[in-house]
C-alpha cells in the first residue's frame, strides 16, 4: 500500500508517442501500395445496375473505361441530360471510340494487348440504343472482350 501511494506522488509519466508516427506511416504505406489514384473525374452520372453473377476484374491496368450516362448536373446546362459517352475525361461521340481504343492499345505493351478488356460503366436508366452503338463500334475495332460493370446485388 505504501509503495503504491508513493508512486502516485510523482504525477503521471508522459506516454512516449514517438512510435505513434511509425504506426501511422505503416498505415500510410499500406494504402499507398494497395490503392491506385483515381484516374479521371467522372462527368456523367453512372449508377450501374445490380447483378448476382458478377466476377472480379482481374487486371485493372489492362482495362479501358467507357462511361455512358446523363451528364452531371453542373454540365447539364451545356450538354443537356441525354445519355452521353465519356472516354477518359471528356465527352465524346461514338465515332471517337476507334481512336480511343487505338490509343489504349498503343499504351500497353505488346504482350498484354490480347488480354485488354473494355469496361462499360453504363447507367441503369440508359436506353440500349447508345449501348448497342458503342458495342458495334467496339466490334469494328475488334475490342471484343468487354465487361458490363455491375454492383453485387444483395442475395
Amino acid at each position, binding site marked *: 500500500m505504501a509503495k503504491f501511494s508513493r508512486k502516485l506522488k510523482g504525477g503521471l509519466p508522459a506516454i512516449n508517442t514517438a512510435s*505513434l508516427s511509425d504506426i501511422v506511416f505503416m498505415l500510410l504505406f499500406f494504402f499507398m501500395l494497395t490503392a491506385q489514384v483515381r484516374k479521371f473525374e467522372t462527368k456523367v452520372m453512372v449508377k450501374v445496375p445490380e447483378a448476382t*453473377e458478377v466476377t472480379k476484374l482481374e487486371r485493372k491496368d489492362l482495362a479501358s473505361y467507357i462511361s455512358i450516362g446523363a451528364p452531371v448536373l453542373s454540365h447539364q446546362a451545356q450538354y443537356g441530360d441525354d445519355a452521353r459517352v465519356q472516354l477518359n475525361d471528356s465527352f465524346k461521340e461514338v465515332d471517337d471510340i476507334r481512336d480511343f481504343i487505338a490509343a489504349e492499345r498503343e499504351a500497353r505493351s505488346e504482350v498484354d494487348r490480347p488480354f485488354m478488356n473494355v469496361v462499360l460503366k453504363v447507367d441503369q436508366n440508359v436506353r440500349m440504343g447508345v449501348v448497342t452503338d458503342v458495342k458495334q463500334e467496339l466490334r469494328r475495332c475488334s475490342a471484343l472482350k468487354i465487361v458490363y460493370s455491375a454492383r453485387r446485388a444483395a442475395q
Partner: protein
Amino acid sequence: MAKQITTINTASMADIAFMMLFFFLVTTNLDVDLGLARMLPPIPDENQQQDDVKVNRRNVMVVLINSQDRILAGNQPIEIGQLKEKVREFILNPADHPDLPEKEIRDVENFGPYPITKGVISLQNDRSTTYDTYMRVQNELIKAYNEIREEFSMQQFGKPFIKLDEVEQKVVRTIYNQAISEAEPRDVSKRARR
C-alpha cells in the same frame, strides 16, 4: 553538471503522417471493379459468303426484350423470374424432348465422350430497352449456366466448380459452353427508328 539529453518532440510527426494518410484515403478508390464479362462476336467478313450453317429451329431460343421491357423467350411472354428455369430446361433437355435442342456426343479432352447440347440462346433487344432490364436478363442467363456447371461439377467431380483445378474447369466449360449470342442490332419494333 549532468549530461544533457535533448529529445526532439515527435508528437507532431504523427499528425503529419495522419494528414498524408487522409490525403491518400480521399484520393484513392479501393472499390474493386465487378461486372459480367462477355465476349462480343467478331464482325463478319463482308467478302465472305453468307453460308452460315442452317441452324435447326429447335436449337435456338430467342430471348427478346421489347421497348416496354417485356421479355419474350421462345415465342412466349415470360416474367424475368421464370427465365432461368426456362433456360435450364433448354440447355439440359433432360427428357430429350423433340422441341428442345438436340445433343451431340462429342469427345471432351481429359474427360471422354459426353452429349453436348447444340442449343444457342439469341439475345435480342430494342433500341429503347432499358439497360437495367437488359442486364437483369443477361444475369439470369449467366446464372442458369453457372447453376448447371455447379451441378455438373458436384455430380462428376464431387466438388463445387470454384474448387476444381484448371483442367477440370476447362472440361466443365467445354461441356456447358456459354452459347449466348448477342444478335446483330436491328429494330425489333415495327415502327421505324426515330
